[in-house]
């Protein structure tokens, strides 16, 4: 397996979408390729950062204002 082939399957690997056979091939490639290993690990951490951080919270007062405005407009429909 080449690095390009590994990269093409990286998302499937991270999303747990590979068969056992393919997984074994990917592991074999990782065993000899520090580059792909680092890429996989740091990509996984990238996803975790964005999954776990609430970057754009909606403050409660703004939320209440928006809900009130939405429902007022709906009543006029």
């Amino acid at each position: 397996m080449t690095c390009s082939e590994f990269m093409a399957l990286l998302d499937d690997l991270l999303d747990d979408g590979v068969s056992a056979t393919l997984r074994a091939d990917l592991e074999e490639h990782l065993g000899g390729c520090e580059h792909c290993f680092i890429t996989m690990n740091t990509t996984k951490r990238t996803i975790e950062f964005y999954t776990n951080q609430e970057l754009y919270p909606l403050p409660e007062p703004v939320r209440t204002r928006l809900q009130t405005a939405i429902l007022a407009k709906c009543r006029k429909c």
Partner: protein
Amino acid sequence: MDLPWQPMSFHPLLLRSGTPIYYERTAKNAIPPQISSKTNQEKVKFLKPPAMETIQSAGTEEIHPDVALVARAREGDLQAFETLVKQYDRQVFRIAQHITQNKEDAEDVVQDAFLKAYEKLHQFQGNSKFYTWLVRIAVNESLMRLRKRRTGRMVSIDEDVETDEGSMPRDLADWGPDPEQMYNQSELAEILRKTIQGLPPGFRTVFTLRDVEGLSTDETAEALGLSVPAVKSRLLRARLQLRERLSRYFRKRNGDGVQ
């Protein structure tokens, strides 16, 4: 027993939504535990709409509560629609803010998307989930706002996706074990915001729906009117571009034992 992957560290600031665990390799060719969609859903429970698959599992006749709410709202029951608004307003705001990168625009999108959904409820066929249908409206409204802000220049989710950036990683440096400890919470959030802002809208949108909001690949494709292969291709490149850009902040430095 020695496991091939050992948890390295976690940071208290991330505990509110679950504990992200980073792994270091203890066996040379081991793959770290998967980021399964289920694990993600548990981690970001506070962020997400109800997990549809747990409510409407294959082979059962169970119906998602949204179906009844939509039916009641169609009949003019505003309270039912209010429940839908309260259920999804945070997610719509977050998606809109990710796409428009502007707080005022995102607030406008929340209002316009829900109003449009209410007006068009009779057009909702129920072939898709209500939330996916709502996301599609919100994405379109967000792109319209982005276009207005860019003085009328056309903006679409196809913009700049032909770039080669992100197709192959260039930064080969590993990260330190604890980027969260190099930066405080607000600094880290700012880095993440700045980094995702730099992505083309087409990549940003796919990444937001898949990895931030937890939609499946099929749902993302449906919400964006893209094919599944297009979503997968954009997601991979978005993830790699973000990784590459975050490496500027998180890569191991001299003194960390590398380089």
